[in-house]
């Protein structure tokens, strides 16, 4: 085959250009540390990466939702624990109030304390989380109970709205408890106790049973809330491992395999330098150099 200078220039240029373009794409991968820098780099992987990024963003959001729900559930638990103590105290008062050795005035003094207890329960029921009443259903701007007089509270002012926390894809959880289901039996039993004591008579056995019932009801609600707190904790743990595995998947798709990219880059560099060296040798000389 006839070889002309033009051919040597052409092929040299092509070889250098193709090596340089490969080197520049390697350099891009090294500097961005990404395997995928534009949709055409690997369309199928880019497609998966775009979807995975949305999944990860959503998982991150679920994490925030779980944190908020946990805060809310903790606040509910605290309020209920405090009310539990109040009922315990009422129970003690009721038992001593059922003792015939007390005078009527003693009982009336105790009634004063029960009034305080009723007001405390109403206050605890008015617990807030991030500025919202948590035991009022959807009526978060309205306290579930307001104190209307000494030892007297209003009827339940909230509703039965169910607050749902989204804690995973297709996984949501109720994080609200309506105030009346938790506190109404306690308030009813306490006001019964108050009127018993106020009358100066012995505390009725029915009142003690009612207090016991109210405590049981509260404990049932607390254990329900506790179960939710547990589930939130579990969700948080499984969310963390889901996030880790998805991040690993995304990294596998997106991130450049640095050792292999750098090895490849230095291979190309060697090729590039070899091309330059050979070209310099071939192009330097011509017959003209030897003709006098």
């Amino acid at each position, binding site marked *: 085959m006839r070889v002309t200078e*033009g051919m040597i220039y052409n092929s040299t240029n092509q070889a250098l250009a193709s090596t340089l373009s490969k080197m520049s794409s390697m350099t891009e991968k090294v500097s961005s540390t990404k395997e*995928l820098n534009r949709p*055409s*780099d690997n369309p199928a992987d880019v497609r998966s990466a*775009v979807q995975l990024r949305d999944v990860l963003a*959503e998982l991150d959001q679920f994490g925030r939702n779980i944190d908020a729900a946990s805060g809310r559930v903790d606040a509910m638990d605290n309020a209920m624990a405090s009310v539990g103590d109040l009922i315990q105290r009422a129970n003690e008062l009721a038992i001593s109030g059922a003792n015939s050795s007390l005078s009527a005035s003693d009982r009336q003094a105790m009634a004063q304390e029960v009034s305080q207890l009723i007001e405390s329960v109403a206050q605890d029921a008015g617990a807030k989380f991030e500025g919202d009443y948590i035991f009022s259903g959807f009526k978060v701007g309205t306290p579930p109970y307001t104190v209307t007089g000494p030892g007297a509270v209003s009827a339940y002012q909230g509703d039965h709205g169910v607050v*749902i926390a989204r804690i995973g894809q297709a996984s949501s959880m109720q994080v609200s408890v309506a105030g009346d*289901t938790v506190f109404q039996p306690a308030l009813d039993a306490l006001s019964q106790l108050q009127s018993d004591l106020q009358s100066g008579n012995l505390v009725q056995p029915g009142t003690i049973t009612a207090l016991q019932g109210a405590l049981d009801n509260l404990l049932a609600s607390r254990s329900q809330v506790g179960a939710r707190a547990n589930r939130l904790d579990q969700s948080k743990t499984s969310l963390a491992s889901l996030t880790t595995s998805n991040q690993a998947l995304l990294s596998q798709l997106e991130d450049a395999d640095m050792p292999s990219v750098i090895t490849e880059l230095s291979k190309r560099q060697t090729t590039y330098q070899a091309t330059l060296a050979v070209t310099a040798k071939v192009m330097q000389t011509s017959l003209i150099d030897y003709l006098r």
Partner: protein
Amino acid sequence: MSSPFFGLDIGASALRAAQQLLDTAAHNVANANTPGYSRQRVNLVAAPPYTYPAFNRSGLPGQIGTGVNVMAITRIRDNFLDLQVQTQTGLQGQWDARQQELSKVEAIFPEPSDSGLGGTLSKYWNAWQDIAADPTSTAARSALTEQAQALATDINRDATQLGIIRTGINAQVTDKVQTINDLATQIATLNGQIQRVSVTGDNPNDLLDQREQLLEQLSAVVPTQVLTRADGTISVLLGGTDLVNNVYARKLDTQTGPTGDLTPVWADGTAFTPPSGALKALTDFRDVDLASYQSQLDSLAQGIADATNALHERGVDQLGNAGQALFTYQASAVAGTLAVNQAIVADPRLLAVASSPNSPGDGSVAGLIADLRNATSYTAGTAGVNAVGGMDLTTGTTARLMTIASGSATAQTWTFSGSGNSLTLTGANGQTQTITVPDMASGTTQTLNFDQLGISLKLSTAIGVGKAATDLVTDLTTAGQNTIVTASLFTPPQTASDFYSGLVGKIGTAGSQAQEMGANQQLVVNQLTQRVASTSGVSLDEEATDMVRFQHAYQAAARVITTMDQMLETLINNTGLVGR
């Protein structure tokens, strides 16, 4: 007997020939780097010998050589190779043009990254979840309006960028048509010059080279068919019609379509459809690929906006009013005109995330909108009917239509009817299914599953209050509240993330295909270029060898003349002097 001066003439012809050879070598060396130049060769032939066969020929032995003649100066060219170069250059031009436009589109969708539309979309859905988790938070509401505006702005920007690419292609179409016209005029001019040289019997080598160079440039824009005429001129045909015939060039023009797009046509208005080449790549990309990207961006914007609006309009805002549309757009250019309702931006209390009035802690509608992220279709009450109260199916607080887990339902309006505990759902197209509704236990959610219709409705009760099946059926079939609509976000049904990543994938696939094809085509063209360079290219070594050879020939010819001169000196001046 030949004349003693005969040898001088032979020497002179050799001198002339050697000089011509050296001149041509010089011309080759001079044009070694001229694009399209073919090396030239001097065709030498021995001059007609003496004597001619005739009765009056001399009695000498014959024939006697009379020197050398320069027959012609020709160029070394492979016409078949030219044809291949033209065809393959055309294909390369086609892929290159396409690849260039696709790389511009890719720049608009810089995925995977946080700065692309995908990231904005994720943040938008997340913002709804934040409101669902804390509907009373002003910060969350403001953040949502910000994210909604960011989404609209991003989609606007992408639409504008795609529009700029379209404008750019139209400008290129004009340029290419102008290029074709310019090249055609130049080829026609060369045809005239070539014709004039050819009729004299000479070879217009350099003019032919120039014409082939122009043809190669032309075929990169539009594929041509070339017919060579006996007088050396060529006819260039585009799709069977003469672009150049003899010294005449026909003009192309552009026609502006109804949408402002430019189409190439013949200047007389006749349709012109290039079968391949860069011009076709540009118009095809504009009319097929770019149009599809633009319409998909529109679909993406509309799917998200419509679904968000449908659910949002059925919510109740913090002031107790029915929700307004969150997004506005013009149907003719959805992506370009997508905007957020400024009243809501100004007052985020107007975000209607509750399902009934006086429920500030209710973010269930925000939750439903957030659920659109992984939904392929959605269901909502009929506008104007359940406007206030949204999904609230009852007058009390006992049951709420919470969410829709529907999969395959086609877009249409559905109506509830029935009595007792039997509930019938009938679609606009006559599809119907009757199910038996069980009593709702208190504190649980319940799903009404119309499996044959592809719809399942999730109801939730408020805590502590159950609802009998018959009451539920009465609620659901109450006139004026007994319709729901189903719609798909996209066609075919898919999630927003799937739709967007599908669009990005499509752009990426087209881009990588164009890159690969362009690179392959480049290899083919390179190989052909090398073969042309091998055949027609100037080799400086070869020319140097030739120069040495021709120089020697020249020197030898001069020496012949000197020898002849000495011979004549002997004859004329030194002959017959014996005894003088």
